[in-house]
């Protein structure tokens, strides 16, 4: 057998011997990643991610008609799917707003319905917290936009009203007023007549849970290398020179390390996926066949993560500093690529930078695993990054051997 393959077998033996420890480390990593995902979800959407937006409602006095309006609002399908209304008093409402239990506080005058009927514009005051979360901000924006739309409609009606008076058409005024109201409001409120509807989300095509699962998978791949320091760390100068004398140059050595890391990671991920699937089967009674079939979509991300790990271990002066470097690079890149907070909420420059980071494409690869929508181009880019890290790793192996 050729020397190189004997070396590979030996390295493989060294690596697979560590597999139980690596899997144990992986379980700890999954715990960390799960915590990060949970915190991220909380940070991003607070309680609204798992429930609806809470709105505190304060009413002046008791009024059956206002109760009727509130009940009508609560039962509207679009509102009911998003908001829950809690009737309270002013002090409690403000307290709810301050401690984040309510995304907004509505102050409804007792005479609201009567005023609408008699044509008086009685405003409903809506108070938002200063440091409102994303949902609060969105609600604020939507409310402002709605108020603006209504105000524009009203300006139009008042302009036409004034025009009729100027031309002495008082007799036509009431009919014109009613018609304008109807036309303006039907156009302004039924916006589907005027605009196309397009849903957009900070997390792209993935829902929040999928997004953080993808982000967690990428972080898991990147941090996996921490548990592999014993066989991915640098060779001693003596060993690297002896291997070089035996014809194992930097490229062969670097490729061998990557191959071992990749095989161990593939085996580990396979085992963890099977365990996860078994757990899912016991928990839900269904075998997640489709998800298991999507596993190959993760291979490009795994290949890239392994190449990055090998490179970082060779670039770091010691295995210990390699671990630290892997951690910093993984967390830094994932943050820039929107793995912790979606890039929609980060400065635009971050989004531009993230396109040049492998993590961005690893997220796509992890997303493809979850959705089953594999994109060849994403995989090709990841393989390109794998090659670049491989070359960089080989450069450092060579530099080390040359002393």
């Amino acid at each position, binding site marked *: 057998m050729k*020397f190189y393959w*004997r*070396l590979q077998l*030996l390295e493989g*033996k*060294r690596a697979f*011997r560590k597999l139980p420890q690596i899997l144990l480390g992986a379980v700890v990593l999954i715990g960390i990643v799960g915590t990060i995902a949970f915190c991220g979800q909380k940070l991003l959407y607070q309680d609204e991610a798992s429930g609806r937006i809470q709105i505190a409602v304060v009413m002046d006095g008791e009024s059956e008609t206002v109760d009727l309006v509130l009940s009508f609002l609560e039962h509207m399908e679009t509102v009911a799917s998003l908001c829950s209304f809690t009737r309270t008093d002013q002090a409690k409402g403000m307290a709810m707003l301050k401690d984040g239990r309510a995304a907004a506080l509505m102050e409804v005058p007792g005479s609201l319905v009567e005023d609408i009927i008699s044509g008086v514009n009685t405003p409903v005051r809506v108070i938002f917290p200063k440091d409102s979360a994303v949902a609060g901000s969105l609600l604020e924006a939507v409310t402002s936009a709605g108020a603006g739309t209504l105000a524009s409609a009203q300006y139009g009606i008042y302009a036409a009203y004034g025009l009729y008076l100027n031309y002495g058409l008082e007799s036509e005024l009431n009919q014109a007023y009613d018609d304008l109201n109807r036309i303006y409001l039907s156009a302004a409120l039924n916006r589907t007549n005027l605009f196309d509807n397009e849903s957009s989300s900070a997390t792209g095509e993935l829902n929040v849970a999928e997004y953080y699962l993808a982000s967690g998978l990428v972080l898991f791949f990147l941090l996996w290398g921490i548990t592999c320091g*014993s*066989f991915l760390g640098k060779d*001693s*100068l*003596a*060993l690297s*020179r*002896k*291997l*070089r*004398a*035996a*014809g194992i140059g930097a490229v062969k050595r670097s490729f061998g390390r990557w191959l071992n890391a990749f095989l161990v990671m593939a085996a580990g991920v396979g085992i963890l996926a099977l365990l996860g699937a078994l757990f899912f089967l016991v928990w839900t009674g269904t075998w997640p066949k489709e998800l298991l079939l999507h596993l190959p979509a993760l291979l490009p991300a795994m290949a890239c993560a392994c190449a990055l790990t090998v490179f970082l271990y060779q670039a770091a002066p010691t295995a210990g500093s390699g671990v630290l470097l892997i951690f910093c690079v993984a967390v830094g890149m994932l943050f820039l690529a929107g793995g912790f907070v979606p890039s929609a909420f980060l400065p635009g420059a971050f989004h531009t930078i993230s396109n040049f980071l492998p993590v961005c494409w690893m997220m796509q690869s992890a997303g493809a695993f979850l959705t089953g929508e594999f994109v060849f181009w994403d995989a090709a880019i990841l393989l390109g990054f794998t090659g670049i890290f491989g070359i960089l790793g080989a450069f450092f192996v060579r530099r080390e*051997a*040359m*002393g």
Partner: protein
Amino acid sequence: MIKVKNIIYSYGKKRVLDGVCLTAAQGDCVAVAGANGCGKSTLLSLLAGALRPQAGEMIYGGRDAAKEKNVFQKMVGYVPQDNPLFEELTVRDNLRLWYSESPYSMEKDLSSGILSVLKLSEMLSLRVSRLSGGMKKRVSIGCALAAHPPILILDEPSAALDLICKEDIRRYLTMYLKQKGTILITTHEEAELDLCNRLYILKKGKLAERDPKLRGAALLQELA
């Protein structure tokens, strides 16, 4: 067996070897002496094929090392100053890596062949990380000799070893020379210098041949 001409090697701007020439015939034991940091290990790394010279010619058994790919692998066994071993693996695994023949012939060689002097068969199942410095050195030599090379290059093989270990290694080197092997060695041990029939002194990048019987104050004067 070995002809080296005008070897040049630099680390950055610092020239460590400046036109080094060296010859060794079959059965020769050549010692290279010099002060610490003078470039002895670099020279041996070059001679073993671990480093490539920036200029010069290296002929092994009539074959040009620069032109033929496998010259070093086939002809040279190299024992670096530090141990080139996989610490997490056993002695057997480490030896198998360098042994091109079957595992059976390896075991036979270790128990009754020339390598039996190194007493490796007793520690085959032990992990290298659990071995003492002397035991590791024996394993390193065992690895270097696994392919039965005609040339053995040793970089201070006895450094920091106990007397028994030094004696075992010396005995082994004597046997190797009797079998017409060629040895290139850097050493500070007089017992190992006594094995050598040729002596080179490396000073300021230049290699000069001296009387192999040179010892004590005279040798120190040459080195200074």
